[in-house]
């Protein structure tokens, strides 16, 4: 069975500092990988996705993530965060052959302070 572990439940960081949100997954089959962001009282918005090809993927709002198959990781990074990046971030995995069923991690609360 697939599973996703987000290694940090909360990440406080100062504005303009770099940030990394960590995600590890477990799966015995080929997967797609995703990062979603959830602002308070809103649904989920796709930040970026890894389907195949280059292991470094770029997303919206200056975020990027690197797929590391040997370490089964998909960490999210941003070189300089803004106050507006304060939100909950979810890593998710989908079995390539399962038509889109998403398995989510527990979430990481990113709090950007001035």
């Amino acid at each position, binding site marked *: 069975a697939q599973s996703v572990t987000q290694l940090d439940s909360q990440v406080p960081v100062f504005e303009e500092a770099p940030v990394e949100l960590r995600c590890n997954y477990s799966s015995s089959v080929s997967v797609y990988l995703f990062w979603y962001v959830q602002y308070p009282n809103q649904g989920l918005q*796709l930040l970026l996705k890894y389907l195949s090809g280059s292991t470094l993927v770029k997303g919206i709002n200056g975020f990027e993530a690197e797929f590391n198959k040997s370490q089964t990781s998909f960490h999210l990074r941003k070189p300089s965060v803004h106050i507006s990046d304060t939100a909950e971030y979810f890593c998710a995995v989908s079995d390539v052959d399962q038509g889109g069923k998403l398995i989510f991690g527990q979430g990481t609360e990113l709090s950007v302070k001035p």
Partner: protein
Amino acid sequence: DAGVTQSPTHLIKTRGQQVTLRCSPKSGHDTVSWYQQALGQGPQFIFQYYEEEERQRGNFPDRFSGHQFPNYSSELNVNALLLGDSALYLCASSLGLAASSYNEQFFGPGTRLTVL
């Protein structure tokens, strides 16, 4: 394009009651998935509907059932509500159900269900 819409936005029920949540997919989408997000947790997959049939199901009891209409909109029904059913229920829509391909899911804002 209105995106994925869900109704109602908030709902309060008591234990033992039944509830129906509604979802209209993004224009052009024909597949609807439902997720339950308990407070402080990541979303959990409930089930997915395509061509008016349940195609995949997560680890949820039979109290959770659904329906998809010919216009692709969908309902989630929960019977015999428990306190633990309190959560944000998210609907996501996508186009098609092809295996070995990627069909992006677009999420609605959710329905917040509180069971007292």
